[in-house]
């Protein structure tokens, strides 16, 4: 019998592939949200597997805020070209022009205009009826209650109290016009699973995940990467002094916009180091994501508004 035993990674892989195929078979115009992070990398690799030897039957879409790390843009363009995928980049130009910035607008508002609005506008513009996201239930407590197929109303909003029960592998994908579905094929993966799979499949990831000496400043106990005073404080309102900038061995456990992504002190230079570090971690993955920390239900609120 053990001959027919699937490892946990292979079971997770099969589940994710099943979900992706179900979406492509039952919905008209799906898109895969691609944020360039490790989860997106795994999701993309799984999509390639689900449809091999065909090419991806949907485009990738990056909702760009303009505040991502330069390493992320570089990686994105190289990687997408290499695997031959179609990439759509969408930005909420209106608010980018207005200089929306977390330091002045506040995290919640900045996220709302640049990410949530950016996403909702893009979905409407292209007429997508389903969008894959790389969110995992383990990441955050409101996500633990999220469905794999999450129906959103015509404004892209999530109603946590009115979710469809999900039974067996029988996903109900029927929606009305203007409604959309967010689909989370990585729902049951954990951070360790993601890294173990990256190792197993030798999936390329942005080098920011690996530790090296980086320039940072420390604000409210969070280690913020310091690329230039420009990125953190473009209008120089905070009066950051050069003496505040220090150098330390650190890496990023999650990637987002530069001003809102905290680094962690770490010596993990290889994937094995990272797996070891994550297994022994005493802090959760998103502890340094400023956008989660604004209140006890920050993420739930964002999701209700249409965030993924």
């Amino acid at each position, binding site marked *: 019998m053990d001959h027919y035993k*699937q490892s946990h990674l292979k079971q997770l892989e099969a589940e994710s*592939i*099943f979900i992706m195929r179900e979406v492509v078979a039952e919905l008209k115009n799906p898109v895969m949200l691609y944020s360039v992070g490790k989860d997106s990398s795994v999701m993309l690799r799984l999509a390639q597997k689900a449809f*091999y*030897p*065909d090419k991806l039957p949907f485009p990738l879409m990056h909702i760009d805020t303009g505040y991502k790390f330069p390493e992320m843009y570089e990686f994105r363009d190289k990687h997408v070209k290499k695997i031959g995928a179609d990439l759509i980049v969408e930005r909420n130009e209106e608010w980018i022009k207005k200089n929306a910035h977390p330091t002045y607008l506040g995290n919640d508002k900045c996220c709302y205009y640049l990410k949530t609005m950016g996403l909702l506008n893009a979905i409407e513009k292209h007429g997508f009826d389903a969008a894959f996201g790389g969110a995992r239930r383990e990441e955050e407590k409101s996500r633990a209650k999220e469905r794999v197929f999450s129906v959103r109303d015509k404004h892209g909003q999530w109603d946590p109290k009115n*979710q469809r029960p999900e039974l067996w592998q*029988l996903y109900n994908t029927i929606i009305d016009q203007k409604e959309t579905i967010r689909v989370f094929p990585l729902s049951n993966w*954990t951070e360790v699973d993601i890294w173990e799979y990256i190792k197993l499949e030798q999936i390329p990831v942005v080098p920011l995940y690996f530790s090296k000496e980086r320039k940072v400043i420390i604000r409210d106990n969070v280690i913020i990467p310091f690329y230039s005073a420009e990125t953190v404080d473009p209008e120089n309102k905070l009066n950051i002094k050069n003496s505040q900038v220090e150098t330390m061995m650190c890496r990023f456990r999650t990637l987002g916009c530069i001003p809102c992504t905290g680094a962690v002190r770490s010596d993990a230079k290889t994937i094995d180091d990272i797996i070891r570090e994550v297994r022994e971690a005493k802090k959760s993955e998103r502890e340094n994501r400023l956008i989660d920390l604004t209140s006890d*239900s920050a993420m739930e609120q964002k999701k209700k508004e249409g965030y993924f």
Partner: protein
Amino acid sequence: MEKSLLRFVTSGSVDDGKSTLIGRLLYETNCIFEDQYEAVKKTSKKTGKKEVDLSLLLDGLSAEREQKITIDVAYRYFSTAKRKFIIADSPGHEQYTRNMVTGASNSQLAIILIDARNGILTQSKRHGFLISLLQIPHLIVAVNKMDLVDYSQEVFEKISDEYLTFSEKLDIHDIIFIPISALKGDNVVSVSSNMKWYDGKSLLQILEDVHVTADRNLIDFRFPVQYVLRPHQDFRGYAGTLTSGTISPDEEVLILPSGKTSVIKSIVADNKELKEAYAGQAIVLTLKDNLDVSRGDMIVRKNNLPHINDFFDAMLCWMSEIPLSGSKHYLLKHTTQTVKVYIKKIHYKININTLHRQKTTDLTLNEIGRVEIKTAKPLFFDAYKANHGTGSFILIDPLTNHTAAAGMIREIPHTVSEWKRSMPLAISHHEKNLRWEAGNIPLSIWEEHNGHKAGIIWLTGLSGSGKSTLAKHLVKELFERGCQVMYLDGDNIRQGLNNDLGFSQADRTENIRRIGETAKLFFSQGNIVICAFISPFQKDRDFVRSLVPKDRFIELYMKCDIEVCKERDPKGLYKKAYAGEIPDFTGVSSPYEAPAEPEIAIETDVKGIQENLSLVLDYLVKQQFIE
């Protein structure tokens, strides 16, 4: 070492310590992080609690924290060196049935918590019923709060015994009892020294060790086509996940509903080709022939077909605020197809507290009932019990698009009248150029489907000659070899079908005639029918012989000295017969005509049961009934 995966559901209600238990499992396996723990500690303090309230960690939605209740199933993750675990944590009060069924549908194991102080409550039984309904293979009954009953062995055993007695009414095969204290950690991760009388494993050890590979159906190959891949003209692949069974290249397969056959050319998984695929793997199949196969079709083995019907009975768990009544048209999603259906009839609903059936005209939220469903086109299915993947479905309300019910297809009725009532279905069998309809399937097709010849094995002999014993061994042996086998004996026939008959010569003849006709019906639908009856008269036995083709009736003479039979006298009948309490008793006050030319004669007073069994099996192999 590669880790395996175990999905389990925890059920319990307010104050039984479920959150504490989950919190402890996560905490002890290092799956709660300091920042999360600190946040919970802060909130616990704010609400004036002495101990850290781990349940706060589990309530994800703001409404849940505000109302201090859990609304929805939440998924939790932890892992050890051996296994990754996914917990479906279903709340105990509101929407209980709906949440529990949702959480249980993908679980391989369930944990029921019972408060040692309160013992078994109605809801502990309700949980057991749902676990049995959903056919979760393993159940752990954790008797919690043992610290509050002085770790008493007596309390634990009383609860265990009582629950075990109750569970006999259910369909649960593997049940483990464990005394724990989630709060103090006794027997949760390691075995506690507070309960030296308990000689089992800790809860975590059980979760790590429980063997789940065998729970999957690896026999019946079922491949619902999920998506067709056509990257270029030279490649046509069928993407999907094996619901059950295994498959290899060069195996012959049949496609439903077209009935066309082909051969597996290759099994593609990413850029690799597999030599074999098994249940649970997501793959792409290519066929040697260029056939028209699309999503919703099912690829199966020619000799192992699912049921193909547009009519079946199912258990429904109703999940919608809008009850099942009035308009009864729904969409039904089963494997990879969605069809229109009509609920013809609600047989009954089950009171899940008493397990009693009640007549009803509707099903409301959280109710469970048995219904008759008619589909707009045939489905390819198995009974849920035999195959969760091809036996489960959901109903979707076409007005709201909401998932209205979870359904489990019941085993197909075996009585002839119900079989005839089933809807006709036509699938063509191209090779033999035959068409058939349900209720009119030729014997040869049954035999091909079953993989063995049908026949009647007729055991005759005196009371006490060992007919039932041999017959039961034979039934078990054939069943284990995968044969369709039917067993008829004096006990099951005389109490029901023939309870109007006595033991006069005329009644005995009528008795055998009815049995013969019954056996013939089962025979004509492909069964090996094993009949164990004294049947003392040659002409009665010859009548049965005349009902089926010549080489399909096997008369098996159980030869045994009457003195030995008297001595065995398993039912005390000889004693009564000699005392004159039973008139017309064969061998005592009524004659027995030994078969003149039996196919097999066995001297049961000389040889043992195993020897006799192999004698019969050898005969069946020699005559090519079985392989």
